[in-house]
């Protein structure tokens, strides 16, 4: 495989569904973390809600819209359950509670007694045929792209298109929000809760709103992941996925409107480019070795970013360095 081939393959992931779904989830996390300063270390739990909402709906034959509704409702309930007791307390409590809850939920879903509902460790499959996500596919059959490496089939194009549309919609929604007085209160809470309180803002309500909205966007990302892959299982929803989303948010620039999109594209491009280069150009390494190796490269890349551009790709340097109160 040539350098060009590796480049195109990486570009395919960076423009394709993987980046789109990460961008969507990161948009939700960015509202919580980037704008409100909430350290939600269990974002993956919200993705899980969306994915399993869709899967359970398919399993019972309720259809795709019920699937979305189920995922969103579950995300709202989860956000309220986690938020009401912890958002009154210091920021650390939210981090501890969310990371623990995400793990507990994953283990409960994978446990044998849950098999009736969640399929336990085997998960739920055959979602696409059940829900017909690819049936009203307006893109004719065939493959699109050029060469051998930059090719999407009609199904891939369809899920890309739907997911990027959701990304665009939620980004525009967030853009309207953060530019309004409502967004100003969120940023004030990120900077100093007590100052916001002393000026008459009900801090807990704003934090809850941000937490719920971010969680719902996360659940949409989870639902899209379930629709795209056609199956869900518990193995995917592990803490490293949350950390990857943080990487995306920080890479693009936390607290910027377009940061999550840029972050997701760059994240997947770098990851897949490193992967391709390692596998096909330099050595014949096993998949597991290159998997570890590309994460090492990602880590070095992040360190360099933190040293030379800590505000992220889109971040405003003046704002990021405006420390002290």
């Amino acid at each position: 495989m040539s350098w060009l081939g590796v480049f195109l393959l990486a570009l395919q992931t960076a423009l394709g569904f993987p980046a789109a779904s990460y961008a969507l989830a990161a948009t939700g996390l960015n509202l919580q973390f980037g704008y409100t300063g909430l350290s939600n270390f269990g974002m993956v739990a919200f993705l899980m809600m969306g994915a399993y909402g869709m899967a359970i709906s398919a399993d019972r034959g309720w259809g795709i819209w019920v699937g979305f509704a189920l995922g969103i409702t579950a995300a709202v309930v989860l956000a309220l359950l986690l938020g009401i007791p912890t958002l009154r307390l210091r920021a650390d409590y939210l981090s501890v509670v969310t990371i623990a809850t995400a793990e507990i939920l994953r283990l409960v879903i994978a446990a044998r007694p849950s098999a009736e509902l969640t399929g336990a460790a085997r998960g739920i499959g055959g979602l696409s045929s059940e829900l017909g996500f690819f049936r009203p596919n307006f893109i004719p059959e065939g493959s699109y792209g050029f060469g051998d490496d930059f090719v999407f089939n009609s199904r891939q194009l369809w899920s890309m298109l739907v997911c990027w549309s959701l990304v665009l919609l939620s980004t525009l929604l967030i853009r309207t929000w953060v530019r309004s007085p409502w967004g100003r209160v969120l940023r004030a809470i990120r900077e100093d809760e007590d100052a916001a309180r002393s000026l008459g803002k009900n801090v807990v309500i704003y934090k809850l709103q941000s937490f719920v909205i971010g969680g719902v966007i996360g659940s949409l990302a989870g639902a899209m992941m379930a629709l795209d892959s056609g199956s869900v299982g518990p193995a995917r929803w592990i803490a490293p996925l949350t950390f990857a989303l943080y990487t995306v948010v920080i890479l693009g620039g936390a607290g910027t409107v377009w940061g999550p999109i840029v972050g997701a594209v760059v994240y997947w491009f770098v990851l897949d480019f490193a992967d391709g280069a390692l596998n096909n150009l330099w050595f014949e390494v096993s998949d597991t070795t290159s998997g570890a190796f590309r994460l090492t490269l990602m880590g070095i890349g992040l360190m360099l970013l933190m040293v030379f551009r800590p505000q992220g790709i889109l971040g405003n340097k003046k704002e990021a360095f405006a420390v002290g109160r």
Partner: protein
Amino acid sequence: MDADATTADPFADVAPTPGVAKPDPILVADGVQRRYGGLTAVDVAHLELQRGVITSLIGPNGAGKTTFFNLLTGFDKANAGTWTFEGEKANGVRPHHLARRGMVRTFQLTKALGRMTVLDNMLLAGRDQTGESALKSLVKPLWRDEEAANVERAHELLVRFKLDALADEYAAGLSGGQRKLLEMARALMTDPTLVMLDEPMAGVNPALTQSLLGHVTALRDEGMSVLFVEHDMDVIMTISDWVVCMAEGTIIAEGRPADIAGNDAVIEAYLGIDHGNTTTGEIR
């Protein structure tokens, strides 16, 4: 600085004794206590704050001034006690509700919102903003006019506090003194009736202290009531209409600045007990 000659001295018939009643109190506190384990940080039996004057709260370090401040403004929970603001119950009320009722405070360690511009700091403080509702914020026509009015008012205040040139700078870039000014300007943006300033002059150079003092007296002249915590005796004597002195959590004296200056209890609290000629040991 004497009170306006046309208005009668509100303290004409008020005796300089701790817990004395005032003719027109804006805030009345009774039996306020805050304990940390075995230590009683605040134990105020009765205190009334006169409306429309500058009252300063003084006392040595650890006297419980800031804790008392935090209790009154809802930032800390009292173990016992009741207090009213404008005649309505104010104990057990959350801080943002008190702020909306017109009791605004600043902090000893300034809380300028660093990664927001000076103008955004000001706009945040605007009262009852339609655009601060999650749903209505999405429809700009609902709040556009209100926002424009707030921007105008914010600019007026910034001009008054000589911060207008810095409106678009991030607040973190301001000097310590400018942050104090910003915090005071921001507090005014909430249209308060009682302004509570926690050591507004701490760590500020003498020239700026004078300007801050000017701003504090201006608040009173505009009809607001001011309560402020301060250490500097010169500052207190210059601008206060009434002085309350705390030591070890209780109020040990109150009165006009002149009453306080000669008060034995106050001198004792600040300088320690005068043992006169008696000594407990012999120096060889």
